[in-house]
Each structure stands twice: as C-alpha cells, then as structure tokens.
C-alpha cells in the first residue's frame, strides 16, 4: 500500500492524553453515549420479557425477568468501541455473565463453538463462544447504576466490549448455539464477520 496523502493543513485538535493507548486505531473518544440502531426502538415490558438459550432450534433454558434478576449478577467496568468511530472509556455495566447463564442452564460447557444472538425487531449478530466465556460477555440490564434505557437496548442487551459495539446487540432475547459461524444482520451487509477494533476489522475483508 502506498503512503497515505498528507492532508495539507490538517492537525489533531484533540489533546493527546494518556488514554491514547486505550483508543483503537481510527477511533476517537466521546463522553456522551450516542444511539445507533437500524430501526425503531422496540418498547418491551419486562412483564413479557424472557431470555432463552437454544441449541439450533431446541430450547436449553429460559428465564423470565424475575428469574433473570435472581441469577448471580456481575459488575463490569469497561471501554466500548463503536464501528462508527466513537469510543467511550470506563463504562459501568451490571448483568448476568455468559458463564453464569451456562451454569444456571446446567451446562458444564457450551455445546458448540459459535452463537447467534437474536433480538426484538429481528436484529441478529454472531459471536464465537470463545468471545463470551471466561467473563468476556454478559447480558446487561443496567448501565451506570440504572436500568438500561430502551434506546440503549433495554431491558437487556448483550455486552461483548472487546468487539465493535454492534456485536453487543440491543434488545437481546435469545442466544442460539450454532455449529458453524454464520453472518448476522450487519455482518451480511458488509460489516466484518468478527469485528476486532484493535485490528480495525470494520468491514468485510478488513
């Protein structure tokens, strides 16, 4: 690849902070919390909410809101990175970790190596089990000490903070174990199948 052209007169306007090493390539820091979704925000009552684990088409476990809240909760402070270029540091979440869900479902290990997450509104995204287990992924129901707002995915969203944030699917309702990795919604519309921000895997083939 040839050298990128120098943009005459362009200089960084952002101060170089000590947090620079926490910002992946091509990202910039924001302090607010932008909202990005492909369609209307669904309005979901926790009375009608449930979360299910599936293997292919069969049900492994299912929790209603009350049961889900009774599961052991995990607190996580982490940085998040959106493919639209913003990153936000030290975000504070609470929810149920993937490991806890497996245990509560009576599974000693995940039945396959890949998952597809299914959401209200029809959104899907694929995440490997290796990126969920050992504390790497959770179903979050609180942000910054408060119930998760609907526009940010409430009542519950996936949280897989080490991948671009579209993998942290809003309004998540089902985690389906699948034998082979498959593309979800954005992944079949030109976005990267895996989405590692540190390798800048934004789009197909990056």
């Amino acid at each position, binding site marked *: *690849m040839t050298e*990128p*052209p*120098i*943009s*005459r*007169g*362009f*200089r*960084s*306007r*952002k101060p170089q902070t000590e947090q620079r090493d926490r910002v992946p*390539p*091509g990202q*910039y820091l*924001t*302090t*607010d*919390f*932008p*909202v*990005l*979704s*492909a*369609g*209307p*925000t*669904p309005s979901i009552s926790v009375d009608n909410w449930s979360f299910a684990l599936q293997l292919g088409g069969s049900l492994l476990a299912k929790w209603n809101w009350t049961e889900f809240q009774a599961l052991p909760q995990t607190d996580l402070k982490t940085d998040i990175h959106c493919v*639209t*270029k*913003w990153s936000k540091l030290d975000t504070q979440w609470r929810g149920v970790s993937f490991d806890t869900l497996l245990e509560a479902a009576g599974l000693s290990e995940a039945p396959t190596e890949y998952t597809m997450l299914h959401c209200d*509104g*029809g959104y899907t995204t694929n995440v490997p089990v290796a990126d969920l287990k050992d504390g790497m992924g959770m179903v979050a129901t609180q942000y910054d000490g408060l119930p998760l707002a609907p*526009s940010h995915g409430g009542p519950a969203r996936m949280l897989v903070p080490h991948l671009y944030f579209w993998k942290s699917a809003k309004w998540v309702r089902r985690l389906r174990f699948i034998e082979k990795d498959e593309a979800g*919604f*954005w992944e079949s*519309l*030109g976005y990267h199948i895996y989405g590692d921000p540190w390798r800048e895997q*934004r*789009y*197909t*083939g*990056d």
Partner: protein
Amino acid sequence: MTEAQPVAGVPRRLLWSRAEVVSLRDDTPRVRSLTLAVADWPGHLAGQHVDVRLTAEDGYQAQRSYSIASPPEAPLLELTVETISDGEVSPYLTGELRPGDIFELRGPIGGYFVWSERQPGPLVLIGGGSGVVPLMAMLRHRAIAGPTQPALLVYSSRNWDEIIYRDELERLAAADPSLRIVHTLTRAQPQGWQGFRRRVDKAMLEELGVPALASPNLFICGPTPMVETAAQASVELGIDAARIKTERFGPSGG
C-alpha cells in the same frame, strides 16, 4: 455456496481510495458540499455513506463517516458536511479544503438504509438538519430514474437559512407533482411563515397523511431525539416497524 465459488454480490474488501476535490459549494453557513473525483469508485446505492481519513504531517490520522449526497447515476461523488464546531475532521473539510486537494475515503458502506426506485411502495423521508443528506441522494436518484411512486419529504430545520439544498428541493418538487416537500422550522421562522414550526411529531405525520399510505417505505435520519420521536410516532400510526429504517446522528462526532 462454498468459499471456492465467489458469487456476484459478495462484498469485496473496501480499500482506501484517493479523492480529489473538484469543487466546493456552500449550502448554509455551517454546511458545505464537496464534489469529488474518486479513483476506481465502485458505485453506490442512495442512502449509503463513506469513511473519510485525513493524515497529518506527523502521521496522525482521523476517520469519520459521511453520507453520500449524490445519486448512483452521478459521475462525481458528492458529500455534504456539517461543521461541528469543536470537531476534528468536519472543520477541516468545510473550512480548509480547496479544489485540487486530495484525501482518502473508502466505501460505499451500509447496505440497509438504502432505497432504489425499483423498491415498490410510496416513499416517506423524514430528515432533521444534515440528516437530510442521504435522503437527498434518494430524491436525486428518484428524479433521474423517473418517479413511479409518490414521495413525501418532511424536513426539520432550525430556521430558513439552515435548510440544506433549499433551492434544489424547490426545483425537484416543482418538476414532479408526485413529490411533496414539507418544511418545519423549529427555532425561527421568516415573516409570514405558514408552515410547521415545531419538531416532527405524531400529529404532524398524521396531518400529512402518512397513516393512509399503503405499504410505505420510511427512512428517518437526523439527531437521535428526532429519530426516536418520528420512528415511535410512525409505529403508533400503524406503520410496520420492519418498513421503518433509521440512521441516528449522535450528539458527538466531528
């Protein structure tokens, strides 16, 4: 389908291309359109965007996304950029850039918030501020392709001078009886203004006849609160949520 057999439509890798500035046009005091010659541009659909990358002399790079304003049929690519006052990239694009300058971009990106004249059903576009940009690509495409379905643009601006593409929108509507353009001015209105003077809401969409449209395709783009309100109102008015596509501009950016 196997990996050994590439299929038409499988996305290729998006490489950085050089874009040369051909001309600049001031749309409003805070908005400028850049007309660009892009080497090996693969073509795009109305509604898609690009990533722009600037490189400083010390090697520092910054990237941002901008919607494409030009229709797929146009030979040159147009981006319309709003200046974010404490932003890093937009003040450069709208203030510093001159014809002949070169910067990098890659795209097109986004295969969901797109519309083509072949898509059946009336078109409803709801835009706020610079959220009108991808909607303009759709209207320009529609005008070139030859309209076969009615279209409505509801466009919310702060005041008359901040309406992007104001004259061109007027010309498009004058040339096409099946296109209706409705402005709402939320902060200040010219003397004698008879139009809407509030943010897009349910009553406005109802008054404009949106619920009576059969199987419309809705595209909503603008600041998050506007998009949330308009999308919610459309659902309450009985529009199938699957027909409502949104792009939200967060308050951050640059």
